[in-house]
């Protein structure tokens, strides 16, 4: 049993208190389910049941007083019947043809939730199945003569190539090949999704649990045909998201808005029950990756050849960007002259898969890092030595052709991870233990990886993010950004960045509520971009604010907080504008070629080496993580408790991904174990001691050299744990989650 919580982090007393801490511990933070309006109606959604087909008719039981209800179908949509995302392929409500079970067809609302239940049971949607059967796996989707959801069932087919794998294949070297699979993963944020829509002073106002206010805003504008200023979106306290509240809130917002508009603007709450949330909202993309690695006798990588396929589900949603991030991370943080990554996102009859912390990278990194252990076995070389021999160092070119710049030192990261985990001693101890013929086997596993911060390639350029500061006459500085707090600590981190740039106390800074009427579009709250991208914009805004206070309000060149406040009062008195805005500046030297995937995909990466110690019960096949070490180079830690919390939470989600979290799909293609009872996430009893250590090169592109860390910890645990299991048992497990029955089967194959 461990008692060294947070051995790696600076003790919390040195760090300022979380901005949202008090309201959360006191239970006063207002989540969407805590919001009520007089006369509010409750809404519900009726959905398709077949995995693709046509809605033939809708019948209403005549014994219900339907005039008491608000009923909405696709005919009530004033604007475009599509949820605005990358493509407009996914309907807000089904008109006739549809692609998967669980697609929304009708919406019903009533004052009394009980009466609502009765009415839902009294509506019959008649459906006709497609002629061809549904496709539920990547293999089925790619088979010829199968149902074509889109042409060839391939949404995107990309290729990233550096050097020539074809040429490298002609030269003699040691080759390791394997096929790897990852399952879907459910976010299981503890707060289910929900929205309330109403019309207030002629403005369609929608609030709820969400990550990206301006995504929801754009979706509402497109669906209603209203002008941008007739639509307002506000975020409520959001009870976890992890990517799960990036896309789907737009759907729920559109539905709630349709009900409210039909009800004459009355408030309508559409809050999902847990089972509905789990059945219909997007999950992590399942994947299949074929990896072929070639190395010389010393373990130097000669080529990396990867075929990466993700299951996008029935609509495109965000799959193209998930795919490209997965591809860019597929060849790992390794030096290799010949790299080829083919990536495809395919269409199946499942509800669409979507954004989940890591965004394609956990899938491809799992494949590569597990294959690296396979290659190490082929070469008869310890896995940490193989990695150390290939890891990128300053002066190298990454697989995307990006120059690696100092002072990054991945060797130091690896060394610290091996030391903190007592790796070598434990490898020896595991060997001893396993030789004793106990009822369990133990093993150590390692993964080295990096994760790029911000939108991929030219994505940040296209976003044109903006953020600002507003100062009161009393000197309180408010951050104006559409970046949302969902637990990751954005209010705290950004407040620290602004306080530091303005040289005022942390207490003098706060964050305005994300409200599209009040805050500019700072881009979505995703992709580990908040600290690095938005933080940097805010630092610029802070410098502008200082300049304005100097020019217009006689702020002295050196000042304390009292003088700052006095200058703010003068600024207000003079009638000058008390708000400053700053825009994203794209680095001039950053190039990205979308057709070849070569250039600078990300401005900064966080680098990491994770080590897992695992014990497997050889009778039950149950694997338990005994100890976990996470060492990362993150540029700069802005707030130690917040940063450590991100890593600890991400590692535990990664443990769940590796060992517990199995999404079962029913014959209709929807999640069948859509309850907290039968979809198992780690509890406090399952979590090992997690040692979190940071290295700070100060070389990130964010304020003070920070990079992004939110997604990084999701990438490493699964391969480290599976490598540890394979080391313990001598097996070749190549998928996650590795459930006890899979582990037993792998042991049988390995004749343990």
């Amino acid at each position, binding site marked *: 049993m461990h008692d060294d919580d947070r051995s790696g982090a600076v003790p919390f007393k040195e760090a300022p208190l979380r901005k949202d801490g008090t309201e959360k511990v006191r*239970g006063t933070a207002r989540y969407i389910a805590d919001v009520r309006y007089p006369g509010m109606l409750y809404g519900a959604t009726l959905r398709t049941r077949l995995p693709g087909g046509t809605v033939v008719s809708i019948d209403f039981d005549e014994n219900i007083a339907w005039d008491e209800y608000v009923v909405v179908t696709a005919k009530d949509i004033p604007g475009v019947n599509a949820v605005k995302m990358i493509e407009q392929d996914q309907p807000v409500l089904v008109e006739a043809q549809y692609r998967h079970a669980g697609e929304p067809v009708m919406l019903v609302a009533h004052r009394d939730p009980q009466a609502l239940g009765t009415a839902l049971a009294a509506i019959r949607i008649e459906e006709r199945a497609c002629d061809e059967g549904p496709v539920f796996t990547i293999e089925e989707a790619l088979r010829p003569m199968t149902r074509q959801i889109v042409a060839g069932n391939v949404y995107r087919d990309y290729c990233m190539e550096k050097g020539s794998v074809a040429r490298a294949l002609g030269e003699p070297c040691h080759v390791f090949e394997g096929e790897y699979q990852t399952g879907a993963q459910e976010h299981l944020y503890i707060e289910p999704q929900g929205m309330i829509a109403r019309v207030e002073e002629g403005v369609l106002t929608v609030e709820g649990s969400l990550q990206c206010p301006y995504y929801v805003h754009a979706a509402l504008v497109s669906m209603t045909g209203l002008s941008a200023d007739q639509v307002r979106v506000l975020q409520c306290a959001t009870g*976890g998201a992890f990517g799960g509240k990036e896309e789907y809130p737009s759907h729920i917002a559109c539905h709630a808005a349709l009900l409210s508009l039909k009800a004459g603007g009355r408030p309508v709450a559409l809050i999902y029950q847990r089972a509905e949330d789990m059945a219909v909202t997007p999950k992590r993309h399942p994947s299949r990756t074929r990896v072929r690695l070639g190395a010389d006798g010393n373990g130097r990588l000669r080529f990396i050849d990867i075929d990466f396929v993700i299951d996008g589900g029935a609509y495109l949603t965000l799959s193209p960007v998930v795919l490209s991030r997965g591809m860019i991370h597929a060849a790992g943080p390794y030096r290799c002259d010949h790299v080829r990554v083919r990536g495809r996102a395919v269409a199946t009859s499942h509800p669409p898969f979507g954004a989940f912390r890591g965004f394609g990278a956990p899938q491809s990194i799992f494949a590569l890092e597990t294959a690296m252990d396979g290659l190490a076995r082929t070469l008869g070389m310890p896995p940490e030595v193989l990695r150390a021999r290939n890891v990128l160092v300053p002066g190298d070119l990454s697989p995307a052709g990006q120059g690696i710049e100092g002072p990054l030192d991945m060797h130091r990261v690896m060394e610290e991870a091996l030391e903190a985990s007592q790796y070598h001693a434990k490898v020896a101890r595991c060997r001893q233990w396993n030789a004793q013929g106990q009822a369990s086997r133990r093993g150590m596993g390692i993964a080295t990886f990096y994760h790029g911060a911000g939108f991929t390639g030219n994505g940040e350029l296209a976003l044109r993010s903006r953020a600002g500061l507003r100062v009161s006459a009393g000197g309180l500085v408010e951050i104006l950004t559409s970046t949302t707090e969902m637990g990751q600590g954005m209010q705290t981190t950004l407040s620290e960045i602004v306080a530091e740039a303005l040289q005022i106390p942390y207490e003098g800074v706060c964050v305005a509520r994300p409200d599209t009427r009040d805050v500019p579009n700072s881009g979505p709250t995703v992709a580990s971009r908040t600290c690095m991208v938005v933080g940097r914009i805010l630092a610029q805004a802070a410098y502008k604010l200082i300049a304005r206070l100097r020019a217009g309000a006689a702020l002295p060149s050196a000042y304390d907080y009292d003088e700052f406040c006095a200058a703010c009062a003068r600024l207000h008195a003079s009638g000058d504008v008390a708000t400053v805005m700053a825009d994203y500046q794209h680095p001039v030297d950053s190039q990205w070629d979308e057709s070849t995937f070569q250039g600078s995909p990300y401005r900064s990466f966080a680098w990491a080496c994770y080590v897992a110690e695992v014990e497997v019960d050889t009778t039950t096949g149950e694997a338990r993580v005994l100890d976990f070490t996470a060492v990362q180079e993150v540029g700069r830690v802005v707030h130690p408790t917040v940063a450590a919390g991100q890593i600890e939470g991400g590692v535990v989600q990664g443990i769940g991904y590796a060992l517990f979290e199995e999404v079962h799909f029913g014959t209709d293609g929807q999640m069948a174990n859509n309850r907290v009872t039968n979809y198992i996430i780690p509890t406090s009893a399952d979590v090992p001691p997690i040692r979190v250590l940071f290295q700070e090169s100060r070389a990130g592109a964010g304020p003070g050299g920070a990079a992004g860390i939110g997604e990084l910890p999701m990438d490493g645990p699964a391969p480290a744990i599976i490598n540890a299991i394979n080391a313990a048992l001598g097996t070749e497990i190549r998928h996650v989650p590795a459930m006890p029955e899979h582990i037993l089967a792998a042991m049988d194959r390995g004749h343990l």
Partner: protein
Amino acid sequence: MTVSCRFTVNGSPVYGHFAPMRRLLDVVRAECGLTATKEGCGEGECGSCAVLLDGALVNSCLVPIAEVDGREVTTLEGLRTDDPLFAAFAASGGTQCGICTPGMIMAARALLNDCPHPDLSEIRRALSGNLCRCTGYTGIYAAIRAAAGQGGE
């Protein structure tokens, strides 16, 4: 059909006629207006609806109101305002998104009432009915130990 129930919530008497299967969770939130108690799953698995019933930790989504007759309910709002758990959870990474936090603090309070200086294994056992998807639990352990060190009740 309704049943009449009389009980206290955070020391205040409540009397009313309720559908007997009405969940304590809904009564606390909708009738008493105490919204710190959260609904995460509605089936007794996540602990975000945890309250104390006569001092014992229960998931209020599983308690029919008829069972509460004559008993004492304590929600997060009913804890002493200077309960050291509040400051400790805020300071040491015990809360991130916050949706599990009221339930976690109730579970921690129940633990500390029985066992003022728990070791880590006791803390882990006491929290095993409460899910947190954000923190990985480490910050929550740290918070409970910090609160216990300050001599919680």
